[in-house]
């Protein structure tokens, strides 16, 4: 479909659910209150690594108002996990990070529950802790999981331990090519843990129904995986667990990985409800949340690249130590992604990178916004500038020199279809004024690029129901946290069904009724639910046309729907109301119900045949570094993004700007800080700094179309990719301003000042 034919796609109508949110009636998980509910609270480990010698709950149980106290002994002895089943909902025998849940209480009030937690006596035998992911692989490091085998790909004589994931990016003969390179640059980069810090705290509420079913309310991004893992860990069948999505006040992947994300808050709440025989609700305190829920992991990345004098890259070698935390969580997937992306998204004929995802005594890695990508890009794109500097080449020219063309392969992607990388670089160069803008003293300019996956991951469905009055109800499996369900999905259905956007409702996820979905993760909202909703709307339209055709004495192919009227094309007077057809359907097909799904097997096959149409991006910025304080101020920031076809323009810009802000935060200030015992030093918002309006530059966003993606109308996912370039773009601008290359995040005033001093520049 050519762009000009769209009626609604590409515009920016008001967000579904906007009014209730601005008047304070938006219902989030935290606003729930079940009749007769008890208040749940969780006792968390006070040690990062310890044996549990004994737990005595007798005193806690005696407190008036306490209804139940549970420990691992009260739950089925079942482990959960994504790659490894290495975790219980409540710690059994051992704790592996400071926020590890040990026991839980349900009581009449939050105050009584808190009092009861204090009366639970846990005797620990502290063990040595592993904090640094590289150190944790060494033979002398403490062992976190005695019964977890190393990945099979690691040789038995490798003298490595605590590894739960091993990924490789091996292409050609990197050693030989490196030996033949004119210039070799070798560096080590490191990123630290950040917390996604969605504003709404995690909650769970649970209630046993009279028929023996368990209802769970969760502000989780992946209600179906929550159902699956809650059922498994509580020993229930899937039809006996119903998960209802409460509205989400942000997620960013931090609420995305089943029960792992909330450190099993949903099954723990379910267990309390079962034992107490009363509804129970748990609300995490923000500081408790910062130490216990899933995070964007830190990574240590060794990177070495060989280039020819003319700037042609010939080889890369490297090693990644990716921090899983106390359990494997999403670390294996994120570490694998980081390993592949350390190979870059430029032409790379020879590559040899090994990546290890490592258990440490810290909280668990989740799929936080671009898992593995921002970390790798900090190394790759900083390193690109280091190479350019050594070659005496302009960083933009060096990147363009190594940009792939359609049909080329990059590390991890056998074939690219369209390649927007060069165009995004050229636009960013133009917009930032590269080579033209006059920089004052202490100012510098920097650029960095990025890419993100497009089609990997499971599919999902949509159901479009046309009601008797011509309004439309849409069921998808993705939740509304400010992404596609409230913005693009009504538009897609409106476009296909000729119904105004405001007459379309997208229903919140209820696992009893919604189509299955892996979750609102992986930039897959538009790809999965967008495609499925479009196909479901087309299916509904076909049913409508079939019924209307006989009434209008026309062929279904000659019909169109405009403003809820089904008309004969070219003869608009020959029409019947959509409401009439939808009502008549009751006597014919029962109801107009369109079904659609995103067929991931077909998408992967398509990509294999024609190549990946993954998005690319380039960010550029100008910064000013204060040599006395180390403070970095961003003066100008441009973000250029290939998004295929924008569905909701303002929403896609909002995704890009929000994602960029999160990584600008990681670049300049954000970090979860640990002491040597594995204790989090900055759990509260008082100490955990993130970008406020005065730190943020105006992000100047440019959307690039013309490189169609695998989504509906050629759209591409946009939720994560803008997290990829910012850290390196800022680091490169700091280098340009000061001549100092900082290789460990964050680029906070104290770290910048230290680096300047070490270089004799301050």
């Amino acid at each position: 479909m050519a762009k000009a034919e769209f009626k609604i796609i590409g515009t920016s109508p008001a967000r579904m659910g906007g009014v209730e949110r601005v008047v304070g009636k938006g219902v989030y998980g935290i606003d729930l209150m079940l009749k007769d509910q008890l208040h749940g609270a969780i006792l968390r480990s006070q040690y990062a690594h310890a044996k549990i010698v004994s737990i005595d709950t007798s005193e806690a149980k005696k407190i008036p108002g306490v209804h139940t106290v549970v420990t691992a002994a009260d739950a089925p002895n079942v482990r959960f996990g994504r790659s490894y089943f290495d975790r219980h909902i409540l710690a059994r025998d051992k704790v592996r990070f400071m926020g590890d849940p040990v026991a839980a209480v349900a009581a009449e009030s939050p105050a009584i529950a808190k009092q009861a937690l204090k009366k639970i006596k846990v005797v620990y035998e502290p063990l040595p802790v592993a904090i640094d992911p590289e150190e944790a692989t060494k033979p002398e490091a403490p062992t976190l999981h005695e019964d977890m085998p190393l990945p099979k790909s690691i040789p038995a004589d490798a003298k490595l331990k605590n590894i739960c994931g091993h990924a490789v990016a091996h292409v050609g003969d990197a050693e030989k090519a490196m030996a033949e390179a004119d210039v070799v640059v070798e560096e080590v980069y490191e990123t630290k843990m950040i917390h996604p810090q969605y504003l709404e705290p995690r909650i769970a509420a649970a209630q046993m129904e009279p028929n023996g079913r368990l209802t769970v309310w969760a502000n989780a991004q992946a209600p179906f995986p929550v159902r699956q893992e809650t059922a498994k860990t509580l020993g229930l069948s899937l039809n006996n667990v119903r998960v209802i999505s409460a509205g989400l006040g942000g997620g960013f992947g931090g609420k995305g990985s089943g029960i792992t994300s909330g450190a099993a808050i949903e099954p723990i709440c379910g267990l309390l409800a079962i034992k107490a025989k009363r509804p129970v609700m748990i609300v995490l305190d923000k500081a408790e949340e910062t130490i216990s829920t899933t995070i964007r992991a830190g990574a240590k990345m060794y990177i070495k690249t060989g280039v020819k004098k003319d700037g042609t890259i010939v080889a890369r070698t490297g090693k990644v130590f990716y921090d899983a935390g106390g359990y494997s969580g999403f670390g294996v997937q994120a570490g694998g992604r980081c390993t592949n992306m350390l190979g870059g998204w430029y032409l790379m004929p020879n590559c040899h990178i090994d990546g290890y995802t490592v258990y440490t005594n810290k909280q668990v890695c989740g799929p936080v916004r671009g898992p593995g990508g921002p970390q790798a890009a900090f190394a790759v794109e900083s390193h690109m500038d280091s190479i350019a500097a050594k070659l005496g080449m302009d960083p933009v020219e060096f990147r363009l020199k190594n940009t792939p063309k359609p049909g080329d392969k990059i590390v991890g992607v056998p074939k690219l279809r369209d390649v927007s990388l060069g165009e995004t670089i050229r636009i960013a160069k133009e917009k930032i004024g590269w080579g033209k803008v006059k920089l004052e003293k202490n100012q510098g300019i920097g650029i960095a690029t990025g890419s993100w996956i497009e089609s990997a991951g499971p599919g999902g469905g949509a159901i479009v129901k046309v009601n008797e009055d011509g309004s439309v109800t849409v069921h998808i499996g993705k939740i509304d946290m400010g992404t596609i369900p409230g913005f693009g999905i009504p538009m897609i259905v409106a476009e296909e069904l000729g119904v105004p956007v405001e007459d379309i409702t997208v229903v919140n996820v209820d696992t009893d009724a919604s189509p299955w979905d892996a979750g609102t993760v992986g930039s897959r909202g538009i790809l999965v639910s967008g495609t499925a909703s479009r196909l479901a709307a087309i299916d509904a339209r076909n049913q409508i046309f079939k019924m209307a055709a006989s009434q209008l004495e026309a062929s279904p192919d000659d019909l169109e729907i405009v403003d809820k009227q089904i008309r004969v094309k070219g003869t608009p007077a020959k029409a019947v109301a959509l409401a009439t057809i939808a009502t008549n359907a009751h006597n014919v097909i029962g109801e107009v119900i369109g079904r659609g799904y995103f067929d991931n097997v077909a998408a992967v096959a398509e990509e294999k045949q024609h190549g990946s149409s993954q998005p690319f991006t380039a960010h550029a910025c100008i910064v000013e570094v204060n040599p006395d304080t180390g403070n970095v101020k961003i003066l100008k920031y441009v973000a250029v993004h290939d998004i295929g076809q924008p569905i909701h323009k303002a929403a896609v810009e909002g995704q890009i700007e929000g994602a960029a802000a999160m990584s600008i935060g990681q670049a300049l200030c954000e970090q979860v800080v640990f002491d040597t015992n594995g204790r989090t030093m900055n759990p509260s918002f008082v100490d955990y700094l993130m970008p406020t309006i005065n730190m943020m530059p105006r992000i100047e966003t440019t959307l690039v179309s013309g490189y169609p993606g695998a989504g509906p109308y050629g759209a591409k996912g946009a939720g994560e990719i803008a997290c990829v370039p910012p850290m390196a773009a800022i680091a490169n601008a700091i280098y340009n301003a000061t001549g100092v290359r900082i290789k460990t995040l964050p680029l906070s005033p104290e770290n910048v000042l230290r680096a300047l001093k070490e270089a004799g520049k301050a």
Partner: protein
Amino acid sequence: MSLTINTMINGQSVSGSAEASTSLLEFLRDTLEYKGTKLCCNTGECGACTIIYNGMPINSCVTMAADAIGAEITTIEGLADGDKLHPVQQAFIDTGAVQCGYCTPGYIISVKALLDRTTKPTAEDIEEAVSGNICRCTGYNKIVDAIHLAADRIAGRA
């Protein structure tokens, strides 16, 4: 010891009881069920719980419920005139500034307090007024757009 708190919320006399240790946010949300004001950091850092207290925007999470005695309070529920949204509310919708929407009530309250003072806010005015309101979704672009649009509409410039 329980306190009886008589206060004025959104122009209505309201009464409820609270413990001496109860925060104003808890009193609003849990006792009076004004759930539009949001709980987040509980340390006065994020602005999600912002309300207008005797004409000034404050963080209700670090204010005691007892301070509400005899006070005049405006919460997000008190801004719209029936079905007609306040210009700040309408501007947040129109510019796409509402993503997840969790910071939105506190933000709108802070912006209303700003635009009650001036309908020609400078960049510095805006920074000062909302630097205590964290938004994790938008990167602030659309929020700044919303503030300018609301100011223009209130002043009759748009």
